[in-house]
């Protein structure tokens, strides 16, 4: 496959960092550290094969033809680029993660819809000092008396049958 030579980072780390949620900052820093280490390694190594001064060797070495052979082979040498074995794994994980993100976004949208509905309920409410008791009962139906679900005397929530106390509730 054609070797994709790379010499510097093409990722916008600032934009990436701004998208990291607060709880995952440590993981992001570790990841960035690793990426920086790889980049440093690439930069410190020379990009292509350094040249060898064969003329000097030819003058000094008495072994017949050795330098010439070496020179010919050196020039003709093609170093194979290492094979990429993990890209497929990355693609798999990426597609799984994309599916997860879609599911999360869907759940998030549902939550936003519920919150928006509640917000609409609050904002459509008239001010308290203009309400009658009937309008209050319409705005807060679960707190008003209803004929369908009557409560027992003394009408406190903890005195009703089937009441389950919340954990850590006050006395």
């Amino acid at each position, binding site marked *: 496959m054609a070797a994709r030579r790379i010499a510097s980072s093409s990722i916008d780390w600032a934009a990436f960092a701004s998208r990291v949620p607060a709880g995952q900052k440590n993981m992001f820093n570790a990841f960035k550290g690793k*990426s920086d280490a790889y980049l440093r390694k690439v930069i410190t*190594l020379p990009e292509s094969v350094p040249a060898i001064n064969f003329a000097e060797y030819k003058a000094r070495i008495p072994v017949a033809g*050795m330098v010439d052979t070496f020179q010919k082979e050196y020039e003709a040498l093609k170093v194979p680029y290492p094979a990429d074995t993990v890209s497929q794994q990355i693609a798999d994980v990426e597609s799984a993660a994309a599916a997860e993100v879609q599911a999360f976004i869907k759940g998030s949208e549902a939550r*936003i819809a519920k919150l928006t509905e509640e917000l609409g309920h609050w904002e459509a*409410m008239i001010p308290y*000092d203009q309400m009658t008791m009937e309008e209050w009962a*319409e705005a807060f139906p679960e707190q008003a008396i209803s004929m369908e679900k009557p409560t027992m005397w003394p009408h406190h929530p903890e005195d009703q049958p089937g009441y389950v106390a919340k954990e850590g509730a006050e006395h």
Partner: protein
Amino acid sequence: MLSRLALRSVQEARPFLVAVRPTSTTAVNKATERDEVNFPRRARPVEPGKVRMGFLPEEWFQFFYSKTGVTGPYMFGVGLTTFLCSKEIYVMEHEFYTGLSIFVMAVYAIKKLGPGIANYLDKEIEDIEGSWVKYRQESVEGLKQAIEDEKKAQWEAEGQKILFDAKRENVALQLEAAYRERLATVHSEVKKRLDYQLETANVKTRIEQKHMVNWIVNNVKASITPAQEAAALKQCFADLKGLAPQSA
């Protein structure tokens, strides 16, 4: 007790147990169906109604004003009182004078303590109503904040794409680093071999040279015969004598 009972129905604070029958099963906000133009909502009045002389409603004076002017209601009051007292329709008996004394004391007490108690009660009402209003405001803000946070979480989740780009780039960087390492290895290996040959050639030349020098010197030394040595020594002495200063 003179009050506004005469003119409109009282809206006292109802007790908590109000039986309300919702007339519809859907969550319709009946508040929005009201005709606000012709039937504006009545807000809870904050100030008590205007009165004259402590207990006579202002509206009664307004009622008289168009027909009889400013002094009308007062004249009416005086006339009515005179009529009731002179005809003994209103009998001023013992309880009346008791009531008069109590009235005086009551006026004094109200003037002294009234404002203080009124302020205290107003503050209590403020606290209660304020807590409701605060709860409402906080609910609204909390919901808005929650919506914002959800949207932000969605935006952050979409940043995953950059993560995978970065991973691919890391793989590419590692491959590149391995390739460059290979190049460096090739270079160093070839150079090592050539250098070795160079060094061996150098060593060989150096040893040959040294050996040759030693051999020549030894041979020359060996070829010096004793006669040559004596003649050379004599020559040296003669030279030295010639060099020495002429001393007596």
